[in-house]
């Protein structure tokens, strides 16, 4: 079934009887060509592109719980291509371009909204860094503008310009950045993949890999053994737990990132604002809630919940930046488990097991990467070669000294 305004009207006039399931719930088959482990955004996108762009059939996505229940279902919905380093920026720019045509591509309105992302600067050194980054973005084909204080004020007059501890000296504006209705991304990819014959199997936990002579044969699951010629793992948040079953130790720690939403408000914040003097970024959803977040909780955890100090830290920063927020009520906070890698950048790579591929280490940046991650992982699974924008995301980069460290904080995952 194709979604359209016409279809919505037709169904409304005929009692909505014609709507069909957005995806099926098939029984797992005995064997597939490619099994994608993980029914999150990345796994579903991988399956979608494998089917659509690389012409594969006999694909399954195995999901432990319900699809889209990981970080694609609990994030702050931001998309952007404003990275500094050459190992990253082309990849995220590719991703942003895919976002720009995604809804028409998979026929699902994910509300991709390029409302602009503004990174505030508060010191001269920050401005120098913003200039270097902005130039890197432009040189990689992305967009950036450097604003002065007046330019920031014109966009966001309610920021703290009069009484700030760290005055706003300008900002780096990335107009093509924005937000996306996050759950819809998972559903759109799932529906698109399903329509192309991909079996999406929920409530199917992978409990082990069957490996013989260094080659993958299939996966053991809570619903029985499933054979596969190739297996791609995209389970960020649980990467260490899953890859451990294949005997791998990863350059990854699991940490929780909290995010928050306020009560609904009439439109107030048109774009995305990132504070430069504290841990706070914020946008406003189409429903009116202010969606915001800050720093991770700092300690290794697999619990999808955080603690008060970080809540307070984030909201202190928020109210310091936007004094009117004091009166706004916090509605809900949640926590997502992040694959925090050793340099803050992800992995899309082969493993030492033939036919077993790994996609993970997305830190808190996995959502915006979803389309490119799926595409590049599909490329790797299909051709056995990395996609040209993802060549740096290798697992052995620490051994060779080719880190992709945007923040420059070194091998301490919780600081990335």
């Amino acid at each position, binding site marked *: 079934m194709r979604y359209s305004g016409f279809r919505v009207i037709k169904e409304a006039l005929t009692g*909505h009887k014609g709507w069909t399931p957005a995806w099926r719930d098939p029984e797992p088959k005995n064997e597939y060509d490619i099994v994608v482990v993980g029914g999150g955004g990345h796994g579903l996108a991988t399956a979608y592109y494998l089917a659509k762009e690389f012409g594969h059939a006999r694909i399954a996505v195995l999901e432990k719980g319900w699809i889209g229940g990981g970080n694609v279902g609990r994030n702050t919905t931001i998309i952007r291509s404003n990275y500094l380093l050459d190992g990253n920026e082309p990849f995220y720019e590719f991703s942003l371009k895919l976002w720009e045509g995604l809804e028409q591509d998979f026929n699902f309105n994910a509300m991709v909204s390029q409302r602009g992302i503004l990174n505030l600067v508060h010191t001269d050194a920050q401005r120098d860094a913003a200039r270097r980054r902005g130039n890197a973005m432009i040189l990689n084909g992305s967009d950036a503008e450097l604003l002065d204080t007046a330019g920031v004020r014109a966009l966001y007059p309610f920021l703290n310009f009069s009484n700030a501890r760290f005055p706003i000296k300008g900002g780096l504006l990335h107009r093509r950045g924005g937000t996306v209705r996050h759950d819809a991304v998972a559903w759109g990819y799932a529906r698109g993949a399903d329509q192309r014959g991909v079996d999406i199997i929920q409530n199917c936990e992978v409990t082990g890999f069957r490996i013989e002579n260094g080659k993958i044969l299939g996966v053991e699951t809570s619903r029985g053994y499933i054979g596969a010629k190739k297996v791609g793992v995209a389970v960020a948040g649980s990467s260490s737990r899953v890859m451990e079953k294949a005997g791998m130790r990863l350059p990854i720690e699991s940490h929780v990132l909290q995010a928050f939403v306020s009560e*609904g408000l009439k439109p107030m914040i048109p774009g995305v604002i990132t504070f430069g003097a504290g841990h706070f970024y914020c946008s406003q959803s189409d429903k009116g809630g202010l969606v915001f977040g800050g720093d991770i909780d700092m300690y290794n955890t697999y619990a999808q919940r955080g603690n008060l100090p970080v809540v307070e830290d984030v909201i*202190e920063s928020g109210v*310091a930046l936007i004094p*009117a927020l*004091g009166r706004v009520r916090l509605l809900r906070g949640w926590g997502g488990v992040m694959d925090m890698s050793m340099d803050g950048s992800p992995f899309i790579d082969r493993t030492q097991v033939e036919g077993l591929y790994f996609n993970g280490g997305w830190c808190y940046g996995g959502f915006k990467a979803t389309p490119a991650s799926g595409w590049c992982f599909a490329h790797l699974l299909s051709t056995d070669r990395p996609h040209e924008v993802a060549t740096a995301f290798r697992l052995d980069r620490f051994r060779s000294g080719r880190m992709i460290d945007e923040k420059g904080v070194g091998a301490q995952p919780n600081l990335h």
Partner: protein
Amino acid sequence: MNKQINRLNGGLIDHDQSLSFKFDGKRFQGHPGDTLASALLANGVRLMGRSFKYHRPRGVLTSGSEEPNALVELRSSGRQEPNTRATVAELYDGLAANSQNRWPSLERDVLSINDLFSNFLTAGFYYKTFMWPKAFWEKLYEPIIRNAAGLGSITGEDDPDVYDKGFLHCDLLVIGAGPAGLMAALTAGRAGARVILADEDFVLGGRLNAESIEVGGVAASDWAAHALAELSAMDNVRVLPRTTVIGAFDHGIYGAVERIADHLPTPASGQPRQIMWRIYSKRALLCAGATERPIAFSNNDRPGIMLAGAMRAYANRWAVRAHEQVAVFTNNDDGHRTAADLIAKGVHVTAVIDTRADAPSVDGTELFAGAQVIGSKGRLGLNSVTIRTDKGFTREIICGGLAVSGGWNPNVHLTCHQRGRPKWDEDLAAFVPGDNLPVGMTVAGAAAGAMSTYGALRTGAEGAIAALSDLDIPAGVPELPEAEDSPVKLRPFWHVSEGKGRAWIDLQNDVTVKDVKLAHQENYVSVEHLKRYTTLGMATDQGKTSNMAGLAVMAELTGKSIPETGTTIFRPPYTPMAMGALAGRAVGKHFHPVRETPSHKWAIEQGAVFTEVGDWLRAQWFPKEGETHWRQSVDREVLQTRASVGVCDVTTLGKIDVQGADAAEFLNKIYANGFAKLAVGKVRYGLMLREDGIAYDDGTAARLAEDHFVVTTTTANAVLVYRRMEFARQCLWPDLDVQLISTTEAWAQYAVAGPNSRKLLEKIVDACFDLSNEAFPFMSCAEITICEGCRARLFRISFSGELAYEIAVPTRYGDAMIRALMEAGEEFDVVPYGTEALGVMRIEKGHAAGNELNGTTTALNLGMGRMVSKKKDCIGNIMSEREGLNQPDALRLVGFKPVDPGQQVVAGGHLMKADGPVDAAHDQGYVTSAAFSPVLQSSIGIGYLKDGAERTGEVLRLANPLEGTEVKVEVVSAHFVDPDGGRQRA
């Protein structure tokens, strides 16, 4: 002046005093003890809000914090609070509130047109359309949706109120002060335990104040008042009314918001509006009661239709009838209580409609057993309901209020905050606390499924005794007062299938039974998918009155049981809370503490311009009269320093005192270069690497004695270096005899730089110390005295490249010393210089600072590769050898000058070959720092260039497409001024 047409006698309000308030500009009267909702009801106002999506007229549903409908904008300007639940807004004289999410008025709301198109606007419709043409989403569709969505608004003005944070500690935290909570607090309080009793209401007692029952032979509300009086008299018990426990966090920590001033027009002088308490509890007893749930039926959302327990509470506690004629619709015995209480209060109850065929009889009204409400009438308020009787007839029942009861859900929310799952109780047809509670938490009263008053009292006492027994605090079993102990009699009934209109489940987000059915049809079956697809339970009430019905309908559709269908996860906060309370006082200018340097006061007197460096405020430059541009001041400061002498406060650099027999060996491990052989009385530049071989920090180490060093760090890394050194000391080399302590704040330190610096210092330093180049050469240090005996430390080090010193005295004398230096320097035209001139001079010298030590650069990149010793064990040297970090074309720190001296080198520009393309693939490096050098009368910069050491003289393009500039620059040595360092050794 309107009459309070629905006001009854009695209740817990002060009928003798009147409070005046406004709603939508219209003036009304209420009484102390009223909420905004009770006062509006008393005045005959049923219409209080509009729903989120269809802008349906809505009235109050509940009498508590679970309210989905009656949301208002309270107060105005910077204090305007959107989405305030009228049911918990305490009435005060002069209160002004407005309805929201409507235009132009609550009665006539243009967007209620949405309701006409509701058949097109079903769950998730927006995912299926608005995709064409592509550009129209952001330009057309989305703005319309955004403007229609949202609820209330804020003005954007700064919130003028302050908020406090605080920390409380207790043996037992009792959450909720209903019968269970009061009995628990009494039991624990009498046992001498430290108890905190917190309740969100302003009158404690919970349902005791809402019921017409007796406890211990007196009115329940009187019993509650007596209990409270006893508790308030105990030193070991802290009672926190108006306090919502918002979340259960790890290890017995709870967050709670106390609303100090929300019931007042404005906070009293000096008082916060609210206090965010962090409560450290050894044990917690959750006595949060239960929330009633409605039954969905066709058009069950008209103003006047409310929960039965709420209607009863309005009558009993607030002396308000919902309307002169009301009816009751229930599936359980508790609904009958409402009928009985209202009849006793003289309200005309037109019927009791009970879904159970075997419903108990009622006095004083007509009972329809086995009947269902299948519709309702009334445009902006309920006029009547239509019922289907057990015999299959329809009947219209006239009523302006309908009390609905579908049973009660225990308030298990806090039991789930650590991802525990509740379990299903068949008898209650509700979820009760599961087995996986937050550590230290137990549950009592209705929250635990003990629904009778006696059950609450008993489990409250038992819960307290058990909790205290864990803590070895013996507690006596109290004598429990007599109270009703009726069992729950209920037959689960979630929604009426029959009816022409929509049956509403989530009243705020406008989710209907049909929406759930559609979600099922489209396979959004997992409860999380259901929630996200339909937005069920995602409104400001977080589905407190709606989630169960949604689950029940989905369970029906899938043929699974409700517990198999699942439950969504409850997350903090329990009810929405002001963000101001979570921010506390760390806002505005007090977001971070300020660190002032010892010369701060003096610098203010000089009219210095300050800049933030971390939390420090440092003088950036010192404008002189007549200087109109900062460059004039900075150029002057640089030139005068280089020509004669300048003084700069450098106290902010970190100082770590390193002592012990193994101090030298320790530093030898910390720094990449060698320190073992540094002579006493000497200073050495030190480069610190991270273990991954990347440059981390630099500074100097001065050896004051064989076993005593003073290490400096950069301002930014002072705390981090200290932390790493402690790690090395305690975890890596635990048996080295080293003692570390930070002394950053203890000493006021000034750089005195320039050819006349020695002459100046000779006037300050006591005569017995010889400062001649022979006696005190470059890189010397000494403990000396100045100004006739003040102890001081002198280091001959130079960041500017000039003959220079840093001199330190105890901080309290720092103010006097800057004055003394200025006075002594007068004959040399001494100039104070700020961070800007400091930066210019270090760029002129090619010294790396924060912009260069950016966390990705190695010693090799910095041109210090040879400093990294391979002959010793030190942090970072092994990993610095990785091949990726040692490529032949690795970035090297070099200098840049514009080919055209009139042009500007910009930091952050990228370097491209003069004749090559300008894109990322051809990037040669980037400029890290740039400045105008008044000495060279040219813009200059330093930065990283591929294979830069071999490219001196090459002309490159410095691309800055961000600002649309491109400048030709020549690669030069980074040491622009005095490259052989003769001046600093002079």
